[in-house]
């Protein structure tokens, strides 16, 4: 029902359709042949090329791998990173925000001080430091953890602000006076109002995490043996794809990143417009 309402919002609709297209594209990774990753098994005496062959529909890289299969696997892995980070960070944000807003006092001050500090410190240098030190143990999931270190701060601020305005409302006060436990008030009275924002935060965190991973990858600090959208760009740049004119190697990840970001951004905009009608028509 909510979804039907949401889909009426143009921004959400466009974003959702784009996302579905990308997910379908990414799901082709299931069909990728097992040898696509093992570049040492592929013939390397052939120059990188574009061909009409279905397997090499987007051409090959300079060591004979199919760009198409790299791309679909990159989409899959980037989404895993994004979703993993969002699962951790946005839920930490939700919890910390609820606690800070509900408890107030010292707890609130401490949580907010931490959140403010993290918002002010530029995130990328911090990620670079963390990634450099964790280089030996980098996996898709540790990248998610690294990005989570800072991405809980915005959701926390937002959820706290919402909670603080909600606990002043009459229905919460009524619930409190009628003897409801704090836990129950949070779950049944406050949570339904926050859920929409939480969803928007979740989408934003997915976007942010995919972006941060690719930033790290451009610097060569991501998991370079796995295919993500970032590492795809990194290897293309490392093998001089721009200098050699191997456009088909660079263009697909760039286009897919732009599409993913636009679609997720539009979805989160659509959700916030749905919850907050004052933002509509702008």
């Amino acid at each position, binding site marked *: 029902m909510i979804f039907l309402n949401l889909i009426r919002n143009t921004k959400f609709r466009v974003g959702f359709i784009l996302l579905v297209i990308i997910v379908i594209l990414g799901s082709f990774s299931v069909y990728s042949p097992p040898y696509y990753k093992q570049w040492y098994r592929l013939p390397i005496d052939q120059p990188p090329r574009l061909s009409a062959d279905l397997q090499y529909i987007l051409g090959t890289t300079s060591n004979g791998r199919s760009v198409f299969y790299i791309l679909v696997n990159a989409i899959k892995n980037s989404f895993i990173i994004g979703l993993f980070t969002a699962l951790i960070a946005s839920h930490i944000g939700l919890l910390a925000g609820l606690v800070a807003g509900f408890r107030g006092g010292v707890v609130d001050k401490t949580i907010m001080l931490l959140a403010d500090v993290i918002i*002010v410190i530029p995130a990328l240098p911090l990620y670079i430091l963390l990634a*450099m030190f964790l280089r030996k143990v980098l996996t898709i999931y540790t990248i998610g953890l690294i990005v989570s270190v800072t991405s809980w701060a915005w959701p926390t601020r937002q959820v706290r602000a919402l909670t603080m305005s909600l606990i002043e409302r009459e229905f919460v006060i009524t619930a409190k006076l009628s003897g409801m436990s704090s836990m129950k008030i949070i779950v049944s009275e406050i949570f339904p109002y926050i859920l929409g924002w939480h969803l928007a935060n979740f989408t934003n965190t997915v976007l942010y995490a995919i972006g941060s991973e690719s*930033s790290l990858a451009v610097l060569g600090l991501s998991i370079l043996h796995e295919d993500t959208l970032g590492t795809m*760009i990194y290897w293309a740049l490392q093998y001089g794809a721009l200098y050699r004119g191997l456009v088909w190697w660079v263009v697909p990840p760039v286009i897919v990143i*732009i599409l993913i970001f636009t679609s997720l951004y539009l979805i989160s905009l659509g959700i916030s417009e749905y919850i907050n009608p004052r933002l509509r028509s702008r």
Partner: protein
Amino acid sequence: MFATIFIAYSFTFLLLKFMPLDAVEFIISQYIAGSAATYQDPAVINELRQSLYELFGLKGTLLEQYITFLKRLFTFDFGPSILAFPTPVMELIKRALPWTIGLLSFTTLVSWIIGNLLGVITTYIEVERGSRVAKILQGIALTLRPTPYYIMALVLILLFVYFIPIFPLPGAGGMLTPEFSFENIISIIRRFTLPALSIIIITAFGWNYISSRTLALNIISEDYFIYAELRGLPDSVVLKRYVLRNILISQITFLALQLGTIFSGALLVETIFALPGLGTIIYRAINTGDINTALGVLSLSMIAVSLATFVIDLVYPIIDPRVRFR
């Protein structure tokens, strides 16, 4: 605000303490392996080891370690770099800093001005005369808003280096030197146009345009604005005194929030375009495993950006008469 910087630095300190690899030996072995062909003076290597131990806070008790670490920060002494041994890290930073600051301040300022003016003026015209320019720009802005700088940089390289070859390939033309000769300045401009553009396009249209448009739409529905219109004030006065002034004030806070992101973005753009700057130093430090240099550049930049944000916060009440401290 000083708490922020303090916590940022303590955080870095803790990070170094719990590092999962023995960085000092790692750095030294890497350095020795990297220069195996030449004879290394053992005394020099010992000195390097000592300064690294001190830098990473591995000497003395925890409190002592922490204090030395702070001292190193305030004296800007980050020890020797590995990638250009034995040049001190500070020397490398000094060479790179003007380029980064130049690129950063130019792009931030230009995009702030362009984005805000464009946002206000197109929205005003849209509301007054019903033109569709603002709608179209808004559509473009929504696509640009979440796009990272380095993606824009790649798009620009593909467009203006590969398909329409007007600009040189990134890195072509060798090292840039800060000399004031006509040819040198031309080559600097040629090398810096695309990087600057990739930052300006995203910041101006993606961020400043969207937020100034939202603010303008809010102001246009305010009573005092309608009153000004009814009084028959000319468009230029209404625009300048009633809309623009109010928007620019709130946009200064926004500028403070943007700084960190623009800085991180500029680092990556520099890397992609192989410009001399902090980004390229970090890139080289990462690729040579030079934790020493990376630590110096990164902690310094974290502190610099936090400080800049703080300064903007301080300047804010001077510009905005409504929040003057009493």
